């Protein structure tokens, strides 16, 4: 009976950890997306300083969460998101405004996909 109780507790702990993981991924991607949105709006309003500041905040959040993301999320997805961050940084420094919305959209979409991948649903389970 002790083994069964131990297994039930372990299963509950795994479920609790997976709920924590969903919330952590939601919070992380949510905060980054907010910064990116502000950065994009500022860039379109020609406020490049604020746009870069917000972008830097988003990038910092992404990079500082590596100890979490590397353990819980698939590495190819993380590498792709990191590449997109550096691509956006390049475009921001270049100041090519016409290309920026697409780069922002790509990064936002990818982060959204990472968030969604942690949520159980028909699409993600099957």
């Amino acid at each position, binding site marked *: *009976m002790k*083994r*069964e109780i*131990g*297994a*039930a507790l*372990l*299963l509950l702990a*795994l*479920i609790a*950890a*997976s*709920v924590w*993981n*969903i919330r952590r991924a939601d919070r992380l991607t949510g905060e980054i997306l907010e910064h990116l949105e502000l950065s994009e709006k500022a860039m379109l309003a020609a406020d490049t300083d604020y746009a870069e500041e917000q972008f830097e905040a988003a990038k910092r959040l992404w990079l500082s969460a590596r100890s979490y993301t*590397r*353990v*819980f*999320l*698939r*590495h*190819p997805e993380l590498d792709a998101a990191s590449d997109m961050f550096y691509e956006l940084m390049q475009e921001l420094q270049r100041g090519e405004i016409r290309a920026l919305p697409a780069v922002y959209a790509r990064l936002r979409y990818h982060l959204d996909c990472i968030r969604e*991948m*942690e*949520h*159980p649903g028909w699409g*993600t*389970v099957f």
Partner: protein
Amino acid sequence: MAIVIIRTGIIYFALLLAMRLMGKRQLGEMELSEFVVASLIADLASHPLQDVGIPMANGLVPILTLFCFEVLIAGLSMKSIRLRTLLFGRPSTLVTRGVIDQREMHANRFTVDELLQELRKQGMFDLSQVEYAVLETDGRLNVIPFPAALPPTADQMGVRVPDVGCPLIVISEGRVIEKNLKALGHDAEWLREELRRRKKREAKEIYLMTVNRAGQSYIAEKEAGA
């Protein structure tokens, strides 16, 4: 992580169902849920090892989940006969009082050749000597011959056989197993005396020594250089 747990659950129960429908022949001396876990775990463990792009957690979480399912299913099936029957099935009697049950054979996808092969494995070459043949839930076939085909027992022959119990290992590769010595009701002094009687000085010279309840011993000496 949640998806990994849900997917593991779906695959575990799907495999359990599939193997249950496939019949007992596939199992090969393992219970159904053990077979499912064994066939999944090796593959689950190998993926994060081969691909460093997969987090270790993606390999560990399903293994832990499977462990939990297995322990819980085994525990619940101990408590509920209905669940046990549902998950693992019931033993099937393929031969009853010497008659092959063709319906059971068909239900278990057991051919006559396979039945005869299994019987031969157990030293039964003549089907007419088989009273019962039961296909267990772990895929093993147990056979009960007709009484006339059974070898006579000492009781039936009126022979008295002394009960000497199971021999226990007293010395293994030069080391004395104190626990076994004590269980046999002997002590170090008895062992020294026994070795002296066999012209041996100490336990180090012995590779294996077993003793039964009647005090009869078997000794294998250590070979030089072994």
